[in-house]
């Protein structure tokens, strides 16, 4: 089946290419276009060749200007064959676009993606060669609106096409007009969760290219930026696209103002998506970010990954908008649970914690509790996580010299019957960590992974004042690859020949397993 299919599709695409060429070469084969459009109905799964064909055809037509109708006002409609033909072509064009948009909803993922690309390419072609004669910059917003209408589906998740759409949002005009169109589309009373997802994702992608913050930047910089700016529908000989960050921000704000009226927090997925969007993209753009405080605070209470995400937003608010948040550190403290290892956002959490705890005005007991808790967690984490946590602890020790008593007590060390630190205490300041020591780090000194052992050694040597290092968190499989890349002078091997599977000494597998009987 699979072997046959590619051949078939190859054949079809070759055929289609021929047809398209014929059509483009002479008007004799005008019917080919109709045929091609007809074929959309026959196909059910893979529209890719068809979409490619219509893309080729109409891009070419637009370039040639065949689609331009010369309508003279106050004159009866021209019925010359030429005009008729043009009109017919225009109809076909509209039909093709409708087809392409339909294809975005149907069929295989690859063909859906292709449909989106085709629609965008056509939009680009039309922007470059508008259907009506214009002098200035032209952007076919209507087409974009149609595309967005498809993307903002209420029933099906459009994440794949939207992800693909990102390659177009790099263009500044697309971004600006996209935000404008989206703001116009946004208002809706009670959207479905999927719609919200799609909306948020689309907004996210539209904001992927950073919008410059200060409006009145230096003139030179702006010029350079304009020269380097990527514009989708730019054509030579026409004025440049007037990119206006302020407008962009206004529309982004409007989009969000609609979105935040929706019940975003009801479903965790949407909630997370919204938080991510807010934290990563929107925060700097918002006019009144403190309006998001409520949402962030609610999210922070939600627990789990959601609160980790909200933490970043809260940090932003605290740092730049003078928001005072009660029990901030206790909440942060509560996030350090073994469950954090399973979440995707653990690296973000560690990074944020590093920032949070970089303040030198924090009470020692609180920071000590954090250090203690992190080292406890490092005891159970995977090597990568342990390494990150240990780095964090090292930074704490460096930034807060008072914590040094946790690794090297100056007074004569007292012998205690148990660890004074109370792991269960929810308030960091009351966990009595200052009386304790970082025995966990010493235990990690004997960790099996050389990298972790080295990190633990670094913590213990934190008395030497290196500047605190930024957390370099690795990918999970990096450790394995790094280990393979290490060069060794010699390859040590065992020196006692085993007679069987069992080791001459220290056999454990067969101690617990009865494998050979």
């Amino acid at each position: 089946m699979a072997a046959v299919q590619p051949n078939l599709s190859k054949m079809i695409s070759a055929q289609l290419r021929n047809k398209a060429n014929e059509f483009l070469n002479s008007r004799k084969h005008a019917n080919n276009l109709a045929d091609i459009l007809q074929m959309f109905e026959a196909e059910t799964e893979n529209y890719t060749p068809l979409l490619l064909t219509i893309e080729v055809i109409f891009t070419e037509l637009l370039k040639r200007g065949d689609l331009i109708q010369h309508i003279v006002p106050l004159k009866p409609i021209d019925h010359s064959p030429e005009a008729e033909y043009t009109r017919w072509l225009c109809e076909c064009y509209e039909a093709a676009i409708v087809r392409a948009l339909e294809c975005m909803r149907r069929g295989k993922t690859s063909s859906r993606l292709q449909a989106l690309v085709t629609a965008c390419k056509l939009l680009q072609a039309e922007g470059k060669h508008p259907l009506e004669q214009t002098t200035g910059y032209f952007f076919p917003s209507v087409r974009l609106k149609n595309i967005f209408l498809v993307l903002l589906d209420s029933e099906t998740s459009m994440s794949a096409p939207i992800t693909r759409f990102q390659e177009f949002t790099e263009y500044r005009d697309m971004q600006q007009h996209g935000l404008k169109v989206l703001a116009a589309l946004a208002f809706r009373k009670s959207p479905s969760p999927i719609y919200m997802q799609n909306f948020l994702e689309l907004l996210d992608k539209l904001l992927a290219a950073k919008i410059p913050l200060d409006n009145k930047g230096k003139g030179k910089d702006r010029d350079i930026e304009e020269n380097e700016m990527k514009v989708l529908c730019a054509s030579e000989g026409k004025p440049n696209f007037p990119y206006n960050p302020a407008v962009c921000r206004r529309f982004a704000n409007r989009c969000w103002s609609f979105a935040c009226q929706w019940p975003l927090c009801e479903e965790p997925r949407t909630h997370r998506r919204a938080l991510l969007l807010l934290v990563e993209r929107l925060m700097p753009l918002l006019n009144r970010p403190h309006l998001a405080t409520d949402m962030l605070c609610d999210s922070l209470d939600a627990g789990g990954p959601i609160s980790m995400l909200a933490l970043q937003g809260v940090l932003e608010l605290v740092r730049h908008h003078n928001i005072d948040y009660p029990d901030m550190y206790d909440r942060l403290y509560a996030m350090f649970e073994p469950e954090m290892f399973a979440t995707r956002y653990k690296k973000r959490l560690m990074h944020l914690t590093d920032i949070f705890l970089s303040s030198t005005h924090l009470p020692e007991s609180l920071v000590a509790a954090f250090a203690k808790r992190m080292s406890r967690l490092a005891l159970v984490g995977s090597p990568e996580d342990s390494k990150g946590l240990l780095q964090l602890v090292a930074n704490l020790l460096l930034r807060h010299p008072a914590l040094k008593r946790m690794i090297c007590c100056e007074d004569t060390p007292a012998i205690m019957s148990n660890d004074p630190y109370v792991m269960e205490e929810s308030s960091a300041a009351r966990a009595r960590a200052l009386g304790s020591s970082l025995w966990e780090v010493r235990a990690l000194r004997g960790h099996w992974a050389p990298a972790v052992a080295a990190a633990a050694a670094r913590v213990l040597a934190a008395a030497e004042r290196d500047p605190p290092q930024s957390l370099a968190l690795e990918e999970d499989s990096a450790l394995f690859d790094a280990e393979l890349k290490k060069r060794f002078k010699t390859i040590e091997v065992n020196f006692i020949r085993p007679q069987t599977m069992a080791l001459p000494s220290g056999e454990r597998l067969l101690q617990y397993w009865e494998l050979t009987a």
Partner: protein
Amino acid sequence: MAKVKNKRNAGLADRVHNKKKAEANKKKLNPFEVHINKEKLKVLGKKSKHDRGLPGVARAKAIQKRKETLGTEMKLINKTNTFIDRRIGEKNNQISAEDRMIARFAAERVKQHSKKSIYNLADDEILTHRGQTLEQIEKFDDPKSSDDEDEDKQFGGLDNDFVSEGHFGGGVLSKAESKDGAKSHKDLIEQLIAESKKRKAEKQKEKEQTLDLTEKLDSEWKDLQPVVFKKQKVQEESLIDKLLSKAEKGQDYDRMMRELRFEKRGTPSDGLKSKEKQDEEERKKIEELERQRELRMISEEDVTAPKNAKTPKHRSADDLDDNFELEDEKEFMLAYDKDGKPLVPEHVLKDYSVPNSKKIFEDGVSDTSEEEGEEESDEDDIKAEKDENTDEKSEVNKSEDSDEETSDESESEQETEKRNEKVTTKKSIKNLNESTGLKRKHSSNSDEDAASRIDSNKKSTVNSYIEKESLHTSESKIIKLNSSNDDKNMSDDDDDDEDEDEESSDDSKDGSDDDTNLNNLNDLKGTDESDEFDDIEDSDEKIGSFFELKSVEGDKLKELLTGKTPSQHTIALQKLIKSYDPGLSVNNKELLSRLFAHLLQYTHDVFSNISEEGEIIKSFLIFDRLVPFFYDLIHINKVSTKKFLVELLKEKYDAYKRNTKKVPDLNTLIFFKLVSSLYPTSDFRHPVVTPSLIFMSDILTLARFTDAYSVSRGFFIVSLILEYTVLSKRYVPAAVNFLRGVIFLCANTCVLNPVQVVPPFRLHKSAKILILERDCSKMTAERKMAAKDLAATEIDDSLKIRCLLTAMLMLKEFFDNYIEIEALEAIFEPHIQLLRRVDLDLYPKKVSKKISEVLTYMKQTLEVKTYTQMSREKVKPKALRLYEPDIQDVFTGSKSSKLSKENADRARLQGKYKKEMKGALREIRRDKAYIASVKIRQKIQSDNVRKDKVKQIYKDASIQQGELNKLKRMK
């Protein structure tokens, strides 16, 4: 008193008087004699000797000196004799005449007593004559020579009377007496001559006689000699005779013997060691290696840390050894420009600022795809499906392109391969035809290959596959198709397996073949060795041609080993390795490392696709036999075998990473065991062991343990981790967490009172698959996990019991390993809490007893554990450094201090020489002047004398003349 005082006063007066006298005696400096040398530059603190001089005095001294030296010499000039006065004290005019006499007398006496003992004459002297002691000479070597002297001593041997008469006779008185004898002088002389002649003749005769006698004695002695030493001589002669005769008899034998005798008899070496000695050496060697292993256990950082402490270049003499460093960095003042930006160098600012707050995380903004992976499994399904769809589609797109490429590649590959094959086809086909049916299949397969090569390129993808597998073309085709189509069924376990196998090893088919074989052979385990040898014999030729064709080595190995009992494996491999011993040929080392790779592949195959208990046991039995050979092979070529093993691990790891939730099967896990038996697992860092530990830890942290399959394999891994860390006692959180999770799965936890667990186990989501629901206290429990647990598909009660028991035993072992760690409680407290919730009553008595034993042990140990705050070791205060004085060369005053030492010395010496030369020249000049002055004085003196004499003569002459004139006048 008064007297005393008086005395003192008198003394004082004397002293004053003496002093005055002395001052008077002291030469008064005549101010006119003093000459003051003018000083051009005054140098402070410099002592000058030459600031003033007494030229007159100095000149007089010099002249006096010359008079004593040069003057006397001049006096003696042209005189051959010298008069040396050796009288004692004669020249020393400080000694008085009396003293002189006494000294002379004393010397005389000493001279008399210089002999040590007058009565003991020459007793200790060894007299020598011409270097020989007299004793040596007294051996009478030459008796002839000694006679002459004593005879000829006096007056040519004439007797005393004759001499006294003849020589000193005469005289009137005696003559008168002797007249009676009436012998004339002439007669006397004649008598004398005759007498002496007669004596001479007598002497001659006597001499000859003695000579004759000695000669006679000698000859007689010679005759006697053989009689005296007869015995020895005879023997010697006979030996020699024998040799000679023998030499004549057998020349060749003799030559051979001599050759043998002079041939090199092998280098001397250590004597053969006794068994005990060998054992002893072996033991020592192993001890040494053990010691090295223990060294390697410590991290390099620890070892090198003291060495790395770098010493500052310069240390001041005031350095207190407190590592205080003068900071060169300038302090900066924090200032801001008008925009409010700090005016501080950037790196400084960076050091003091908070970490970069805006950081890009790639953890889920863009891809919604896997986001939910971890958190919500219910949502997972829809989502994952979609993703897979998208993935798949893009994949298909790609594969369309890539297929074409690969087909091209494989074509070319094939072509080259074919060329190779052509060369060896005849041989290989012969080989193949001879042997088993399997081989025949192979050959037909290769024929097919040849055919396919000719007909089309379309098949090429399939063909490339054939090449790899070289078995079952059609079937592999099917698999290929399956693999491309069945992506949707990824979640399905069976398909998954197949996929994995194909990707990792491309031998799944063989694996299944093995399966059937193994099934048949299950019973063969205990068969006799005798028929095994028969089997082996026919495999000999296979061994002979094992490495002939590179591409089929793997298959050959498989042929060699499949369908044999484990002990036959041993024999076959032994033979194979022996026949390719690296000592025999240079290539063998490489060949054997290739064999290692094939053995790895074989092991993989043996452990692939086994699902029954019997198969598992069988596989382990085979593996059991293979391990020693793996050991041998890595010792032959450490580098390449390590490379093979690491590549294999990498491949497996990548395969695992594709689906981290699924625990890899035994065909992966078995290699961890292999690693532990080949490499030292205790090293701090090891090229093979560390990656495999990472792999295992990753499995335990990422995989999901939700069924019998995964849990049993989890236990397998944990026991291996125990084995890895048994010596180093390193801390492995993943294993401890796994045990925690397992106990959690066994325990009753309610939502209200949760006990923390660590991922991959999750508090409210992991199904309690190991919890015991009915009372099993009557059941008998097995002690160990068994092979059947690896094959189990459902979790029955006995498995649950065994899991908990094993978990407890392992936990105890971990606990014991980490007992030194202070944070022990933090590590094991959750386990204890969880164990409290396990309903022990349901478990068999023995098991519950064992568990509670371990539990109480752990509790007690933790209770006893004390905590001491971490502190540094107190460092001893360092003593102040004492520095050696810096001794430098003395400043010699030479300007050219830049010169090298030799040159400087040379220059200094030259300067000195010049100075001396100058001084000497001046002295000579003055000597000359002195000599001249002496000479002129002599000349003047002699002139004066002459003048006086002339005057005298004139005077005499004038007187004479006057008298003559007077006489004339008188006339």
